[in-house]
């Protein structure tokens, strides 16, 4: 039997799911497929030891976001309008994808112990985290080293919710 790494299998399934989503006209089915896509990426994140990211992806991507898109579909209708194939968007997507792949060529290989981040930045964080007696380095980096950054992120969540409120809010008076 051929020895296939589970990453390759997951990436293959990811590709199949993505193509299916692109081809589906029924948007309910498409949002279920995007949920599967999220779950598969969560699996990939677990394999990369990014458990934090994995269960955020599973909860947000496969859970909350799917429910929200189903909710949105119940407001708008669930069939995609038939349109003839457009060339320009495809060219833009293809070019962006090519640029992204070109960008990854300069990055260190996956799991490379000699990568810059492992020889210069990570040791400081690990040492600092040990001084603070917090075993999870991710928590130290997020909350302490990059406190401003993460504060900004929670502000982004706040602003996003504010945007949704502005668009969708209805007081009890409007509803009646």
């Amino acid at each position, binding site marked *: 039997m051929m020895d296939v790494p589970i990453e390759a299998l997951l990436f293959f399934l990811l590709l199949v799911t993505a193509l299916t989503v692109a081809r589906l006209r029924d948007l309910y089915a498409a949002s279920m497929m995007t949920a599967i896509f999220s779950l598969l990426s969560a699996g990939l994140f677990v394999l990369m030891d990014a458990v934090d990211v994995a269960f955020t992806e599973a*909860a947000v991507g496969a859970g909350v976001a799917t429910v*929200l898109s189903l*909710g949105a579909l119940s407001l708008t209708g669930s069939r995609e309008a038939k349109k003839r194939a457009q060339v320009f968007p495809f060219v833009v997507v293809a070019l962006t994808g090519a640029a992204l792949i070109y960008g990854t060529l300069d990055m260190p290989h996956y799991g490379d112990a000699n990568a810059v981040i492992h020889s210069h930045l990570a040791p400081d964080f690990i040492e600092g985290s040990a001084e603070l*007696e*917090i075993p999870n380095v991710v*928590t130290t980096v997020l*909350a302490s080293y990059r406190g401003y950054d993460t*504060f900004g992120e*929670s502000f982004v969540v706040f602003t996003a919710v504010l945007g949704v409120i502005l668009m969708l809010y209805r007081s009890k008076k409007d509803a009646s």
Partner: protein
Amino acid sequence: MNAPKHMRMREKLILRVAAKSLLPFFFLFALYVQFHGDFGPGGGFQAGVIFAAGIVLYGLIYGIEAAQAVIPRIWVEIGVAVGVLIWGGTGIATMQSGGRYLEYGKLDPEHVVHGQHLGIMFVELGVLCTVASGMTLIFYLFAGRGR
């Protein structure tokens, strides 16, 4: 999500029983992820999302009114802002104790490490509050729109 669909969902015994027996574990796991974030994977954001997912599941099976009876919309509206304020307030508190903005070590003048732990706990609580309320509020707004 119009009303008849909800009725049908609510009448499905297996969904109701499965959801109800799973829900306590959702919230327990959210709390575990929140308070164990210093030692294992997780933290405020993940805990908030899991918490919100629990509420969304409840709303999905039992209807949005039932979910809003448990967690009223006004709570989550306030919660989104309170979370950001907790984080910002932690920064103010560190300045009050003579440090720089978000210099958690100053929260406990005798013990820097303990101060850091306190600070991280507060800001993680802030994130939990904002994320859980935010996700729930977005769900309420989307689901409440169609009726």
